[in-house]
């Protein structure tokens, strides 16, 4: 029966090119049929095991605004060799470019080049909010909140940014990203001077009345004042203290305000700075890493406001983001689906999402698909899109037929332009809908119809080649690509 054969292990790679460090990990993602064997199969990801933790390498830069692509590639290739991993065996994974590095001129090139290099179904992902989510998951904040039925905030404080993700009983409820990090002020250890101050931190110093310029002596009390100001901004983002007028400036996406749905019950801190928060003895050499990371960590540790939230220890500190990228990016589709294997994999497919009003009736659905397809015209040319909706729970057979008809009529221009139909539903109906589409599609037109995947307007999706004997497809939903 299905429970004997329904198990598969995917080798997954996670690569994080961060502000300060570049890291690689490999993990095993185990997919298993969790049904009794007497009912419809239900594949789930049941285990994520890290099988190789790579070294922590300094992110190589050619200039302050360019990443050294060749050097990054050498680091990654070296880790594959050390781990003994052949890139053709990689089943899934993600390359993320995070923090300040994501704003370098060639960030887009680097991440896409690396995802091609890393394996067939390794996605390139970026964006401050996605970073927050994967770091939170890599730190284990989502699992803790679910297991303890509580709220947990994870703050991933890295070199260039601080990424907040809040989970309520396993569910993501808030994300934000602040331009606060340990490497935004760098110190020349030989000359004991401040060698670099990030522009936004210069503004912060000005607002706080702290006199600090590049070339100044690296004066610990002054730098501590800067770190205290940074910590106060973190406190504001957590809703612990009223927001100052300067606060919006420090948000990575300045237009996106952050309001948590309540003060979280627990906090954990990950990222390179986190080690200073959880260690027993303060690091005596505060400029050990040539930046203010250690001072910032100490400042967060001493915050009276943050201490009001119960502190928990994350599963990962400096590696939270890379572990999140390697183990938490991939999802799997529902287990009763229809697809044509020759179409797979598909990458970077934009989502055309219907809202509840638009999927209320077949007529509305058909009209909405036709109308929204126009949004995806580039220079008058249609492009491949995936049509996504929630779908009815336990639909009647008649409803499924109407749904198939509405989709095919609405998507007629797409079909006329020669694109395959890609349908994504949240509720369990993909197999019967797919068969209805197959029955109605002219000729031997290929299509993909999957369910149990939740996407939003503006997302992009990658769908991988089948796993678990063809029952499920690995899926990656990317909330943001490069803007």
């Amino acid at each position, binding site marked *: 029966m299905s429970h004997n054969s329904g198990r598969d292990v995917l080798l997954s790679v996670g690569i994080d090119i961060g502000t300060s460090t570049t890291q690689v990990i490999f993990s095993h993602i185990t997919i298993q049929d969790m049904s009794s064997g007497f009912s419809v199969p239900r594949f789930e990801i049941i285990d994520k095991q890290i099988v190789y933790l790579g070294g922590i390498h300094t992110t190589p830069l050619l200039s302050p605004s360019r990443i050294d692509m060749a050097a990054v590639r050498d680091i990654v290739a070296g880790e594959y060799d050390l781990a003994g991993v052949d890139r053709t065996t990689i089943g899934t994974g993600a390359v993320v470019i995070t923090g300040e590095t994501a704003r370098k001129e060639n960030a887009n090139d680097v991440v896409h080049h690396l995802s091609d290099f890393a394996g067939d179904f390794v996605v390139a992902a970026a964006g401050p909010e996605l970073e927050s989510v994967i770091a939170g998951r890599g730190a284990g904040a989502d699992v803790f909140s679910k297991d303890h039925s509580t709220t947990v905030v994870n703050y991933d404080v890295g070199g260039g940014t601080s990424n907040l993700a809040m989970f309520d009983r396993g569910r993501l409820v808030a994300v934000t990203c602040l331009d606060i990090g340990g490497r935004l002020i760098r110190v020349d250890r030989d000359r004991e001077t401040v060698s670099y101050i990030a522009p936004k931190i210069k503004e912060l110093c000005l607002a706080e009345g702290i006199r600090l310029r590049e070339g100044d002596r690296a004066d610990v009390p002054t730098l501590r004042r800067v770190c205290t100001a940074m910590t106060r901004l973190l406190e504001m983002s957590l809703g612990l203290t009223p927001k100052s007028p300067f606060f919006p400036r420090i948000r990575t996406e300045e237009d996106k305000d952050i309001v948590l749905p309540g003060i979280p019950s627990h906090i954990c801190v990950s990222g390179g700075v986190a080690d200073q928060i959880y260690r027993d003895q303060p690091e005596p050499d505060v400029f050990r890493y040539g930046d203010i990371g250690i001072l910032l960590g100490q400042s967060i540790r001493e915050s009276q406001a943050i201490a009001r939230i119960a502190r928990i220890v994350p599963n990962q500190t400096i590696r939270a983001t890379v572990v999140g990228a390697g183990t938490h990016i991939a999802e799997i589709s529902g287990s*009763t689906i229809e697809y044509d294997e020759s179409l797979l994999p598909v990458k970077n497919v934009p989502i055309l999402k219907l809202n509840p009003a638009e999927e209320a009736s077949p007529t509305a659905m058909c009209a909405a698909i036709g109308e929204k397809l126009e949004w995806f015209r580039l220079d008058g040319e249609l492009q491949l899109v995936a049509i996504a909706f929630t779908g009815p729970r336990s639909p009647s057979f008649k409803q499924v037929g109407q749904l198939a008809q509405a989709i095919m009529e609405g998507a007629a221009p797409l079909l006329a332009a020669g694109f395959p139909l890609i349908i994504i539903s949240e509720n369990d109906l993909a197999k019967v809908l797919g068969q209805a589409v197959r029955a109605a599609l002219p000729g031997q037109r290929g299509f993909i119809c999957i369910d149990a995947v939740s996407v939003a307007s503006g997302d992009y999706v990658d769908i991988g080649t089948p796993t678990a004997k063809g029952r499920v497809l690995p899926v990656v939903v990317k909330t943001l690509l490069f803007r």
Partner: protein
Amino acid sequence: MYQENDVRQMVRQALGELLAAQATASDAEPVLAPAAETAAGPAGGWTPERTAVEEGFAPDVTAISTKDEFHVPKPENREGYLAMKQSTVGRLGVWRAGPRYNTWSMLHFRADHATAQDAVFTDVPEEFVQQQGFVAGQSLATSKDEFLTRPDLGRKLNDETKALFARELPKNAKVTIMVADGLSSAAMVNIPDIVPAIKQGLKSYNIEVGPIPFVKYGRVGTMDDLGELISSEVVCLLIGERPGLATGESMSAYMAYQPSPERPESWRTVVSNIYSGGTPPAEAGAHVATIIKKILDSKVSGVELSL
């Protein structure tokens, strides 16, 4: 020792006091409807002078799902408990009166039990069988009671039915879909969604399905009888499952390659838990079609079939 008369006297006195107290209470109770006048005169020495008739009714205990019902008075974490309850239809957080459950829980339990009993004891309406265009037959059981008490009779088709099926159904069909009431007539609600879904799926493999036989008082074994009778390559039986306290509408699809009474039970492949709250019937039908195709391709079923 009390004399019998003394006892009678004491009981009479106590009852009199009780009734007087009740009469006062009902006078003071505005929600009660006006008492009906009793026509009969005093009998047996005592009678209440007025009978209170209440027009109200208890709320429908089944209107709220057990997943959303929560009676713990001071929960430590209400949201957490409710979230946990969403993963089961088990009766969690129903609270208690001393060591027993509350009236509400007792009523809900009995209502669910009654639903299950109804599913078992109700017959599938003949209009439904006609409407679906089924070829209607019956097992060797001649009544619901016999069906329930004699499982052996429920597994065999009666002679009349055998003759009818032999006459009306195509021989050597690739696939035959059949339907039986089994232990839940309520499960027939899934038929209008699962049958066309199976047919649609099979059609994509260029497999057409003939008329559908229906067996009243039928158990799973009837598919072996039918398979042997008409030599169908695959038989797929849609049958009502024994109801639990969660639903009475659950259906199973049993499938076998060249079924016959000589085959062991392990020769059957089953997909269970088909209903709106489990695997949706339309989606299950699509899945069943692919399994049937796999059975046809590999010429085995049950535990020997690798899905």
